[in-house]
């Protein structure tokens, strides 16, 4: 009987459901580092991701299914194969890479136009804040034209995956939004 109640409870709060979250962004932005920072809490040495990494992690009683897709030009076209049923997108930007801000903005807006991602929340990490010459979160927001986004919950958080700054804050916000919208 107790089991029955707890499973009903779980269902209500969605603890048994998995949430699909995609981590996207240009190559070398720090997506894989963020993924493993989230999963094992450590900085791992990474190689350019050919394809994707996927990890399941428990965060605040929720089961998150986090997909980190490679950011190289050759792999970007395949992002769309993984859009279905996505609750949220984490878009990672290398804040020191001023030259490719425009490219990042283009890829971001292109992706958000996809039908399958209309209901997905967007969290942008302005990553690599530990590096000298990094743009601030608001500057990155300007460069990416985030204000133009309508009908979507979004937020930008300054982060450093190496130092572990900003990551949990960002994720907390994301979880709150998802809970609010979907449950």
């Amino acid at each position, binding site marked *: 009987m107790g089991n029955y109640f707890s499973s009903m409870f779980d269902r209500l709060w969605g603890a048994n*459901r*998995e949430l699909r979250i995609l981590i996207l962004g240009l190559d070398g932005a720090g997506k894989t580092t963020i993924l493993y920072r989230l999963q094992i809490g450590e900085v791992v040495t990474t190689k350019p991701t*050919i*394809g994707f990494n*996927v990890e399941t992690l428990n965060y605040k009683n929720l089961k998150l*299914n986090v997909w980190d897709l490679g950011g190289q030009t050759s792999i970007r076209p*395949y992002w769309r194969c993984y859009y279905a049923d996505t609750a949220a997108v984490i878009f990672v930007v290398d804040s020191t890479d001023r030259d490719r801000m425009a490219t990042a903005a283009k890829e971001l807006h292109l992706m958000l136009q996809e039908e399958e991602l209309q209901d997905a929340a967007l969290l942008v990490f302005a990553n690599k804040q530990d590096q000298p010459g990094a743009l601030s979160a608001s500057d990155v927001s300007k460069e990416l034209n985030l204000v133009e986004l309508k009908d979507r919950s979004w937020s930008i958080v300054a982060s450093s995956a190496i130092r572990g700054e900003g990551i949990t804050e960002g994720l907390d916000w994301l979880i709150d939004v998802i809970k609010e919208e979907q449950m």
Partner: protein
Amino acid sequence: MSAQTYKKFESAGSSDLPDKMTIYQDCMNTFNESPVSAKRCRLLISRLLRLLSSGETFPQTEATALFFSISKLFQHQNDSLRQVVYLAIKELSGISEDVLMATSSIMKDVQNGSDIVKPNAIRALTYVLDESTAFSAERLLKNAVVSKNQSVSSAALCTAYNLLPISEVTIKRFSNEAQEAIMEVKTAPMSARSEFVSKAPHITQYHALGLVYELKRNDKMALMKLIQQCSDGFVLKNQFARMELMKIVNDLIHRDTQLFAQFQQLFNVWLQDRSSLVSLETAKTITTFAIAHPRLVSPDLFATTVNVLRKLMNEFNCGAKLGAVKVVNKMAMVSPEKVAVCNPELESLLSMSNKELATFAITTLLKTSNEDNISNLIGRITEFVHKVSDDFKITVIEAIRTLSLKFPKEWKVIIKFLIDVLKNSEGAAKFKSSVVEAIIDIVAFVPQSKELALESLCDFIEDCEYNEVLVRVLHLLGKEGPSTSNPSLYVRHIFNRVVLENSIIRSAAVIALSKFALTKNDPTLKDSIVSLLNRISNDTDDEVRDRATISLKLLGSEHSFAKDLVQSKYYYDLNSLESKLTTYISTNEDSFKTPFDVSQIRKFSEDEMKAIELKHKQDRVFKSTDNDESGNRDAIAPATVSTNKRKDNDTYKGADLHEHEQDLLESKYADELSGMEEFKEFGKLINSSKVTPLTESEAEFVVRAVKHVFKDNIVLQFNITNTLVDVALDNVSVVCSAEDPENSRLEELFTLPIERLAPAGESACYVAFKKSTDTVMKGFLNTLHFTTRELNPDTHEPFEDDEGFQDEYEIDSLFLNAGDYIKSSFVGNFEATFDQLPNEEVAVYNIQEDLSLQEVIDKLVLNTSCLPLSNTQFAPTDSSSHVLKLFGKSALMGTKVALVIKMIKSSKGVALKAQCRTEDATLCADIVNNLM
């Protein structure tokens, strides 16, 4: 619905194959679900795999969609699900695009996965990596190669092996690790459950050896060292590894025959190896080598080998038996007397319940048999053949057919056997037609057998249910019947068909009948045939009526060519006829107002045709041995099917096509030549030689020559291939100077140079001569003259200011010899023909070079371009003397040429005595004096 499609529906198991689209939909739905249900996914993938393995395939877009949805299953950590995911990735990688998307996930498993999935992940890497990504997997793979875990290590070795053609640079760096893996003893992962214990201990040694061989295959010294290390004591614990090492030895001794002696010790030990696999491979290596270089194998070793083979045939294991029979069979192809001692073992195999083995034993026995025991053997086969299925029957019949070419004197026994099988054995059309084909062969090449064979066939067609077979027999009766002593006998049988059978057979019978009207042996027959044909022209079927009417018309005609139409004396060269007709139809110059010109097509007389056929058949006997060998070499390393495909895609079918291509090439050259304005006035092309290479095949410029003979002219065609990159050759010509210019009976007319030969281009340069006598023998010293022009790599045009650079290039000399004036031809009774020919010349040669009899024979056949008869083109291995019988016809006059060449091999060389008889006096001396 034909019988075959009907059967396909019936085939076992096809009905319970799951529906393709249902599976596809289920897969797409289930794999994209969240959370993933491991059990359901596993089941679905296994059904998908079943579909794929039974030959079903998906269109590329669907396969790609499937691949992506399967890649999503990486989110689930279940090991057994992961294993099937890898299987699916491997299967789909061939038909899906973008498989590289799985790379990172697979590499993660290689690094951190459990011991169960690690090997699977490593093997799957083969299918997703390309040249650039292979580099990033290098560390991972190397770590896996040196792993203590046997399954991981051998998976990594296999992957490295398969990646070699994809990323040679990366894999080249693996040689140290691979070499260590050969020596190191690895253990299988221990598991509580016993079924996980590896059934093949130390298999890494086999895989590592394969990889090391691939990496070092061009380094003879390294391979020698490898063999030395591995053959020492008990280094190689795995039987496959020992077998593999033997294959490497095999490769080495074929590259350098002198090495054979060094391995003597190894051969002796491994022939007695406890694993039948290894002793079989060793025996195979020794026998193949003995076939090619009989003198280098000591009789002792050979005798031991044959004993080992006999022992293997007595083993319990069917595989070992089959392997041994195959080796013996190959030996029997070239020197049957050497393996005749195996006959008792072979005979005991006849009674095996395994029909495959029994059939192989029979075909081998047929080869080792001699004229004394052949009839006894055929008796045994007759019992056997009635008991086995059609496929085996056909194999046996094929063997008998070759036998008939080998022992023409035994035709009576063979024909009796064939007729018996034909009449008394159950079998489908394919089998019956193979029997009939065998009989047709015998009739064609053993004229004495004609009447008996035809009479038996007449009986057979009285009760035959297969149209195809009946039509062939009727054609044969029409072709051969009129020249028998009692043609009217066949007329009755043929006419019975007209009365009793369906329209297809009736039409064939009409044609056969009409040929009898022209018979010389029974002049009264013509009137009877005409009245029969008159009756048939009221037949109910159009085709039958038409054929009867036209036959009557032709028979009544006064013209002689009408008779030729009824009974054709010439056969067209089908290759050139086909290509000419294709061009005729595709060009369609004036909407077919000009009729197709048949006179351009080469024609063969019946004897020439038979010569060509016989040659093909003899070649085929030899080819089948060669094919086996090349097959061995492909399999020399532990290649999976997929790498074989990757590497050998282009070359794989080469062997079968070669013969046909050679024919096509010849008729193509002849066509090109007769189409050129410059050669119009030379008249008709009389003969073209085989293509002779004048350079090494890997030279800068590859030159091959063809000699064309006209009535009063000679044209030498030089086909030149430019293998240089970025250099074009301008104004390429070949300067041919006769060896002794003073008494040359040839006068050079003109040279047609090649204007420009682009890189990788092939073109022909022609040199034309006028000859003052009919047959001129001459050697030519040849030099290539040309101007090199460097090419601009962007435009592929020469640089403007580049004047070019005059250059010469020496190529081998070319000999115009008697053989170029001879076409090979067939004659049924060589001895009688030889005795009848009026002119005789005799010449004696003494060849100092160290050539084997077989090499001498091959050279003689090539030089004279005559047809070897009575199976004399094979040198006996047990005796030092041989008699070669050659027959041909002069290409110019059509006169007969017959040669009997006696040869004896001694320690000083080979002595030849050539006796040549011809109809035409001039040719006779030329031939005997230009044999070698």
